[in-house]
């Protein structure tokens, strides 16, 4: 059976992860500017814990995706758009993996182990090393800005599909699509 919607699991994970990522992005920008305080240490820890949580959710999402291919692209979508859309989706998956990894490695290199929710210690794969820590911080930042740029393009494309092309691309990724889904 070819469905023309994403599965409920795919939709749930897409929006849950999107929300947490956007939140983490904002928190990341905010917290780095704070003066050192107990609150800053707490926010950093929460940022790291939530980031590791996203990483696990993304792994689950990718596993689910392998078993559940997305619905086919709308008929008549120009070839370049198909390539661009799929390319961006792959890059988004890549960044959703690379960003938490860079955060984890950065923390190790800076001498602050990541202990998930204060309970589960993640191994330090790198020894403390200031230069490497600063480099990984720049990498984490760069990857995050890349993600932000791609997400803007991605969301813009979704809205364009909905408002200009008037196809079902946005609707099939929305949890409540009865009113939006034109093919139903």
């Amino acid at each position: 059976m070819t469905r023309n919607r994403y599965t409920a699991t795919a939709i749930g994970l897409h929006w849950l992860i999107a929300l947490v990522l956007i939140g983490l992005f904002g928190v990341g920008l905010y917290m780095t500017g704070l003066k050192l305080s107990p609150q800053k240490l707490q926010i950093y820890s929460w940022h790291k814990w939530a980031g590791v949580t996203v990483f696990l959710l993304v792994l689950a999402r990718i596993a689910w995706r392998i078993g559940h291919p997305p619905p086919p692209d709308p008929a008549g979508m120009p070839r370049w758009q198909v390539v661009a859309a799929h390319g961006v989706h792959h890059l988004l998956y890549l960044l959703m993996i690379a960003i938490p990894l860079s955060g984890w490695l950065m923390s190790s290199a800076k001498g602050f182990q990541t202990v998930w929710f204060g309970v589960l210690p993640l191994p330090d794969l790198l020894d403390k090393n200031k230069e490497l820590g600063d480099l990984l911080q720049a990498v984490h930042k760069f990857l995050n800005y890349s993600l932000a740029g791609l997400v803007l393009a991605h969301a813009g494309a979704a809205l364009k599909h909905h408002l200009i092309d008037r196809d079902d691309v946005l609707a099939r990724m929305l949890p409540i699509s009865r009113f939006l889904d034109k093919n139903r």
Partner: protein
Amino acid sequence: MIRRLILSTSVSALALGGMPAQAVEYGTLQAAKSSVALTSKQMGVAVDGHFKKFNATISFDPAKPTAASARIDLDLNSVDAGSPDANDEVVGKPWFNVKVFPTASFVSSSVKALGGDRYEAIGKLNIKGKSQDAVLPFTVKQDGSSATFAGSFTVKRLDFAIGEGAWSDVGTVANEVQVKFNLVAAKK
């Protein structure tokens, strides 16, 4: 010059009873091999740091360990608390307040032998204008021409008002701070 170990024969050891023929005393701190490290816990995560400058005056005669004495001075300005941010913070008024209290010290009043190479130095810990009784367990390992005095103990930072105001919340930075020392001295 700061990492110097002055090993003076304790006057009492000389005056009373004299020394057995095989008695060996240790002196001259081997700075490169010595260390004073600290481990704090932030949000449940151990963060390592150390002191770059310290001074130790130890008198230890293996034949008369109970007559030993020790004094350790830490230059609090030389602390590496684990990150540049923390280093800027920890010398400030709510923490060490190094402008007023530049050094912390331990001064022994007696030494107890616990058997084998294990000992205990009993004395006072002086930090930030406050003085508290402290017991420092340590081991002595003699290795040819030198000896290593190593041990660790826990300081409750709030006993010394280290981390005042908002920082006194021990849920963020734990009250217990582990201090680990490893002092290597050459035979005198």
